[in-house]
């Protein structure tokens, strides 16, 4: 018994908090839904939440961990939605059983695989380009995908009118969505916490240094893009089942920005934060949709845009570094829950990760700064 207690103490609960939270959601809402006491609106909301968590988590892998901006995330989703929907349509005639999960799974696999393949294709330019150029390539990719599906012939993908897809059985859909989320957390979390994940964050922090340390940049960048795109594709398949209608114009640039907002609000490179913000943003959006009508609906966008700018400046501005280190949400939490930090040292199982963010510029520019401060003492005041 004592052994069990010690083991439980050694478990890093923060590694499991995501699984526990999602499992709780499934455990609470499944009986409610099966009992028929869950209204349709809540079910639709849950479906949307599951989809957005998937999208935000997958984008978080590229933006938060790989450190590249992808503005074409909706493009991957679009591919998943169309292909998944098409596969399900083709299979529908063969599977007439209402509760058959087979077409859904097959559609999911096809959608995710093809989106992943496109992730690979977009990952290829990522090897030569980065930053602004890569962002514009992903944006271009999203637009190209949208245009191609919009102009497809009616027989293949429905053309501008969109593709009508079979809606999967209502009651189970959100449960499947949350199981997908569990799978996504499992894969991304284990990828990030492994040797591979540390390689990916090393590339983010300094690509040249990472290369010099023998990290295969090509491989890890591609892995990041493929996994991210595959889950976006899965979210797309899920979308096509939840809406039983797929129209390319939905997956535009603004949709990609919406997902990006979720990732940024949750904290780039923080999976739990990303999940929380995906839930919160989806919830607020859905509630506001009924409350704000007409031009007032834009107020929400203004607030999101402001939040985006403020969060990024607060988190990244060099001038606010001291302030940030002093008043920090994490420090606050630590103070509240861990009054004495010395107890940590007794625990042999506890290991502390060395911060991967090495300020290379500071290390390399010391000489310059000395020269600057001796030669131009008043320079900083002017600027």
């Amino acid at each position, binding site marked *: 018994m004592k052994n069990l207690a010690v083991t439980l103490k050694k478990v890093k609960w923060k590694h499991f908090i995501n699984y526990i939270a999602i499992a709780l959601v499934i455990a609470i809402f499944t009986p409610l839904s099966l009992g028929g006491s869950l209204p349709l609106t809540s079910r639709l909301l849950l479906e949307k939440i599951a989809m957005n968590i998937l999208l935000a988590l997958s984008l978080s892998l590229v933006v938060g961990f790989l450190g590249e901006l992808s503005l074409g995330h909706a493009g991957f989703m679009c591919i998943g939605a169309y292909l998944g929907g098409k596969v399900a349509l083709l299979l529908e005639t063969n599977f007439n059983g209402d509760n058959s999960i087979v077409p859904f799974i097959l559609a999911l696999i096809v959608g995710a695989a093809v989106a992943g393949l496109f992730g690979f294709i977009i990952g290829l330019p990522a090897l030569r380009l980065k930053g602004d150029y890569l962002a*514009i390539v992903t944006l*271009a990719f999203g637009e190209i995908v949208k245009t191609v599906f919009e102009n497809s012939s009616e027989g293949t993908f429905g053309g501008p009118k969109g593709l009508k897809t079979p809606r999967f059985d209502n009651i189970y859909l959100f449960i499947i969505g949350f199981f997908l989320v569990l799978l996504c957390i499992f894969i991304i979390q284990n990828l990030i916490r492994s040797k591979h994940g540390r390689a990916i964050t090393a590339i983010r922090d300094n690509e040249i240094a990472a290369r010099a340390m023998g990290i295969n940049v090509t491989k890890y960048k591609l892995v990041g893009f493929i996994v991210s795109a595959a889950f976006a594709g899965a979210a797309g398949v899920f979308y096509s089942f939840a809406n039983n209608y797929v129209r390319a114009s939905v997956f535009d640039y603004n949709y990609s920005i919406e997902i990006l907002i979720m990732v940024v609000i949750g904290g780039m490179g923080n999976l739990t934060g990303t999940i929380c913000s995906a839930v919160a943003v989806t919830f607020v959006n859905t509630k506001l949709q009924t409350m704000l009508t007409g031009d007032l609906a834009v107020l929400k966008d203004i607030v999101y845009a402001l939040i985006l700018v403020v969060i990024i400046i607060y988190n990244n501005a060099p001038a606010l570094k001291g302030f940030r280190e002093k008043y920090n949400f994490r420090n606050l939490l630590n103070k509240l829950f861990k009054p004495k930090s010395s107890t940590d040292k007794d625990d042999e199982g506890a290991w502390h990760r060395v911060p991967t963010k090495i300020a290379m510029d500071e290390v390399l520019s010391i000489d310059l700064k000395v020269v600057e401060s001796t030669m131009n003492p008043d320079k900083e005041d*002017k600027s």
Partner: protein
Amino acid sequence: MDFVLTLVNGLSLGGIYAMIALGYTMVYGIAKMLNFAHGDIIMVGGYTVLIFLSINPILAIVASMIFCLLLGIVVEKVAYKPLRGASPLAVLITAIGVSYLLQSLALIIFGAQPEYVIIADLGVLNIGEISIGYNTIITLVSTVIIMIALTLFVKYTKIGRAMVAVSEDKDAARLMGININMIITITFAIGSSLAALAGVFSLLKVPTITPTYGSMPGIKAFTAAVIGGIGSIPGAMVGGIFLGIVECICNSIPELAPYTIAIEFLILIVILLVKPSGILGKKRREKV
């Protein structure tokens, strides 16, 4: 004859792209950031013209240039300056946020329905069987004049040379006594007023405006700047004209017309992969 007409159309559109790309390329060359809000400044310029149009068209154009110049400075000071020295990803996301903010503000002030902004009816010049709108001629002539003026400005004035210095090496420029922040602000001011002018020219061509009016031309102008070689002023002109002509040729072929945007972006991707420095750009080596 049809082909010549397409070409003229392409020149007209290309002139507008070139004008936007000039602003883009200057900001990118000096501040090293992709200013996503640049396209939305075109939109703001267009709406400013709409407000002042009832007084006087010339006044409206001047007012929109001044307003956009101030807006460019404010955006730079408030949103981009605090992030100088931060990671490029942060700056990029902020720029997207600013762009989103400007669009939403325009949407709440002016509404989503298109507004008609008829600045002036300039008429058409007939040469034989070809008729060229005077707006095309004005656009092209002013773009060329501005391009030459900017090149001379960068080469021969003190501020212009300081700009080159900042774009080459910020730290060295600082050590030479150049006020980097001021130079970047000036760049944003020039770029934004050029964006306003581009807005005026595109309103002369198609007199409707919506809150999302600037985002697509903005992205296409960035494409143009990349094709021409980012940071190069004549490159922006070449890239803009090239893209305008490609767009009009694609639009004139019925089978290709729906895919015009896809083709343009495909060209962008190919150029970025094959020759990221563009047609007239210089190659840069990456340093640690």
